[in-house]
């Protein structure tokens, strides 16, 4: 059913339709509206879940670890500093192969303190073992939650997942969203029934320590699961499409890409701005296209290489920076295009909520065509 609603509320509704049994969260801007809405659903009987109001984010995710290990579908949401506080638990949940889903309303990390959007928070957990999905709009942000649970809980995967959507830009914006009914959600997402759980009837040990004889293999198995996840995501996305008309089988998605000589690559809400700019530039006769990265972990390297094979030049827009190196997305794109000779330029932009507009996209295309890149874009020289 189509409704016009705030991004956070739409996400909360989708999460509720996923029937999490244990929710554990701690408030942080701009994630708060999600967890407030879920608390309201529980308080009014719309959602039958245990809701644990923990004392910080480390405990929020730790409680999800316990709940998931005990065999319940677990959910949390956070952003920025909260996610940073969860750092240790993130690696732990992935290592124990617990399919927890967490919504990330992407926000910058301090210092300096910033409540505004960029993607440094989730990108900084790149190597934690969590699957990472990035939404372009609120429709995608909601739909990706069903898909994330389906993929995460697949017995061949068993990894936790972030569903990332840009803080404020999406979380606090009202858009029309087509919401599944409970029957539809149930048809797509069956109940969580893990083969192994904490159970007195069949005692097992979770979270043992591994000597050097075993540790390497644990990490290898996790990497294998990530590689398998590419197919599982494609299948889950396709099935979602066949049931509800919105196909998410592609881990990367092209927009006016087929004949594009100049290609912009980015993730998240920025894709919408880029698409509008591309439409305008196309009308002016410029062959510009977009490659949107929907899944950052596992990284669809082969799909990217294929999608960009005919590009003459590539601009990567990174809302993050690996200080002393480059943006995380640019590094992946360069890896995917290694040996192709296609020039890839990185533009670090939008950090800490700096607005990125259509004129900026045009300017970046101009910079790219002049061969200028690998730079911060939009610096205010007067404050440096």
């Amino acid at each position, binding site marked *: 059913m189509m409704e016009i609603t705030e991004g956070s509320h739409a996400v909360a509704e989708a999460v509720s339709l996923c029937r999490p049994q244990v929710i554990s969260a701690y408030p942080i801007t701009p994630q708060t509206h999600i967890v407030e809405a879920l608390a309201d659903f529980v308080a009014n009987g719309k959602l039958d*879940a245990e809701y644990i109001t923990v*004392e910080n984010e480390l*405990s929020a995710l730790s409680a999800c670890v316990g709940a998931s290990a005990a065999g319940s579908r677990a959910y949390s949401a956070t952003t920025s500093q909260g996610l940073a506080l969860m750092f240790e638990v993130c690696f732990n949940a992935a290592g124990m192969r617990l399919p927890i889903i967490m919504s990330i309303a992407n926000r910058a990390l301090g210092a300096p303190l910033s409540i505004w959007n960029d993607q440094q928070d989730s990108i900084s957990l790149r190597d934690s073992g969590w699957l990472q999905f990035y939404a372009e709009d609120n429709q995608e942000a909601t739909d990706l939650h069903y898909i994330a649970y389906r993929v995460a809980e697949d017995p061949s995967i068993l990894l936790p997942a972030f569903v990332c959507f840009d803080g404020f830009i999406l979380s606090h914006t009202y858009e029309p969203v087509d919401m599944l009914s409970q029957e539809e959600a149930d048809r797509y997402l069956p109940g969580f029934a893990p083969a192994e759980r904490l159970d007195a009837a069949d005692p097992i040990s979770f979270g043992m320590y591994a000597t050097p004889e075993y540790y390497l293999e644990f990490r290898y198995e996790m990497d294998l699961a990530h590689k398998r996840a590419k197919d599982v995501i494609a299948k889950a996305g396709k099935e979602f499409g066949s049931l509800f008309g919105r196909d998410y089988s592609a881990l990367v998605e092209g927009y006016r890409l087929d004949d594009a000589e100049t290609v912009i690559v980015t993730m998240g809400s920025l894709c919408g701005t880029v698409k509008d700019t591309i439409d305008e530039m196309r009308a002016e006769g410029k062959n510009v296209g977009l490659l949107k990265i929907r899944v950052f972990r596992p990284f669809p390297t082969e799909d990217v290489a294929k999608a960009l094979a005919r590009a003459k030049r590539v601009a990567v827009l990174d809302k993050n920076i690996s200080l002393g190196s480059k943006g995380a997305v640019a590094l992946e794109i360069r890896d995917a295009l290694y040996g192709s000779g296609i020039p890839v330029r990185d533009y670090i932009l939008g950090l800490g909520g700096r607005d990125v507009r259509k004129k900026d996209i045009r300017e970046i295309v101009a910079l790219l065509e002049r061969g200028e890149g690998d730079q911060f874009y939009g610096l205010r020289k007067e404050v440096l």
Partner: protein
Amino acid sequence: MAEKKVCDLFDCGHRACGGCGAALAARLVTQAAGTETIVVSSTGCMEVFSTPYPETAWKVPWIHSLFENAAAVASGIEAALKKQGRKEKVVIMAGDGATFDIGMICISGAFERGHDFTYVCYDNEAYMNTGIQRSGATPYDASTTTSPAGSHSFGNKRPKKDMPQILAAHGAPYVATASIVYPADLMQKVEKAINTPGPCYVQVHAPCCTGWGFEGEQTLAIARLAIETGLWVNYEMLEGKITKVRKVMRKPVEEYLKTQKRFRHLFKPKRQDAEIAAIQVIADKNAEKYGIDIKIPKKE
């Protein structure tokens, strides 16, 4: 017919030192808790000596996540069990470092929320797993690797944190201290904690031969001396009120101190009378606060 071997729920074959107080605590606690129990461990000696992958000493479902988060993990398990309508009991087994220090926030949050679990702290009075560093549970003047006795130091500068009192102040319905040297008492307390709804706390004195510096066969004798000198008090608190205390014919603290290398600097190279007297004051205050002294009526 061969006798069927009855295994403990905390099985033999683990890697603890001979004479480990914590290993004995694990046996007694699991035995008291029974099979319908899920155990949550924090990082520490017990976690490491009991679960080198692919082996485990735990015959009940067991989980270890991190050093500081056992109470939060237990909160999630308890919520999941409630949601699933399951009846297993949740028991945390964490060391004093995980309890008094790094886990304090998680513990405070979980006790305040009132989850139904039993938190057992096996208290060996320092970070033993990392090589005997001081914790908030280390007693006054104990020499550890981060509070070493030296020409300018008598060891740990602070007395033990009063953790049971802190948790009683959270409204914990049942709080108790126990010692591995009185197994029946310990097991009774664990059972009581498990059968009391809400977050309950049992702090178990568990001497560490390696960390305290004594021979493994002395573990129980030293645990007993801690109680007999008043440096460890076994008591029970119901709804914040002390209801039961083990009384003793008190011995001077010196008898306890001289058995362990961590206090050796109080006797060698020269006897530190002022420091020993200061520790005696701690025991005397305990005796007064908890009323542990057995008073023999004078004959007419």
